């Protein structure tokens, strides 16, 4: 036990490696740079606002879908003269679906990536 203590003292005295002189300065500089980068890349739209917009969009979609079941033979209040082929509409619908799908995946990815970034 005494010898174990002696070995510990010996190792602490001689086996501790020393960093370069500017080590602390370098670390603190990197932290400052990181903080600066973070402030520059902060989203203009706050996360909560984005969440509210998403919820609003989804609720409107659901309401419109429910209404479409009950409302039959709707006459548009304006004359829609632009005659687009049906394929254009399906393309627009598919684009919207793909856009929101990618948007949701991106939101989910950012959230999990931020959580797992540290350890």
């Amino acid at each position, binding site marked *: 036990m005494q010898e174990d203590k002696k070995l510990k003292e*010996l190792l602490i*005295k001689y*086996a*501790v*490696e020393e960093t370069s002189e500017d080590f*602390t300065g370098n*670390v603190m500089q990197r*932290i400052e740079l990181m903080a600066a980068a973070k402030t520059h890349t902060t989203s203009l739209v706050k996360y909560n606002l984005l969440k509210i917009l998403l919820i609003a969009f989804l609720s409107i979609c659901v309401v419109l879908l429910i209404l479409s079941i009950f409302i039959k033979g709707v006459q548009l209040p304006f004359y829609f003269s632009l005659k687009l082929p049906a394929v254009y509409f399906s393309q627009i619908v598919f684009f919207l679906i793909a856009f929101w799908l990618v948007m949701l995946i991106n939101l989910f990815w950012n959230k999990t990536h931020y959580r797992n970034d540290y*350890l």
Partner: protein
Amino acid sequence: MVNHQTDELIITRILKGDSAAYGALVTKYSNMVFTLAYNIILNREDAEEVAQDAFLKAFNALPSFKKQSTFPTWLYRIVVNVALNKKKLKKFIVADINEEITTEEDYKIYPLLEQYESRDQKKFIQLAMSALREDERICITMFYLNELSVSEIHELTEISVANIKVLLHRGRKHLYAQLNNLLKTEIKNLM
């Protein structure tokens, strides 16, 4: 205990927005973090990079520091993860250990070592340490230098408690043997 209380005070200040206070923690633990990284990597430049990255990751993760362990133990866990990533390993590789723990260890080196100047003693110790097997060197570093308990080393390295005890015993034995050889060679050279 006082040291850990100081750490907690510094951490509280950092979490309140005083990020410059982190410099005190970096200064305090830089050598120990670097020593651990160096003994895993065995390359000064890479070890310094690992130590810096570990401090950066620790700074970012400070809000998630639960105080279930002390700050240095938590920090060393980050160092081990960063060093393993650097080595592209998922965990430490330990060779089969079939050696039983015996009580015989060579303590004759102390009087021999004390005949040399501090600078030479440091050189011998560092040479002997770097000549150890990787698993033995890491266990010796964590136990004696980072002052981690066997169970903490087990948590950090995923090496079983029984194997850590054997590695510590074997590491000590090999360290003494290496020092003995180095000192004998030095004496022969002087003669």
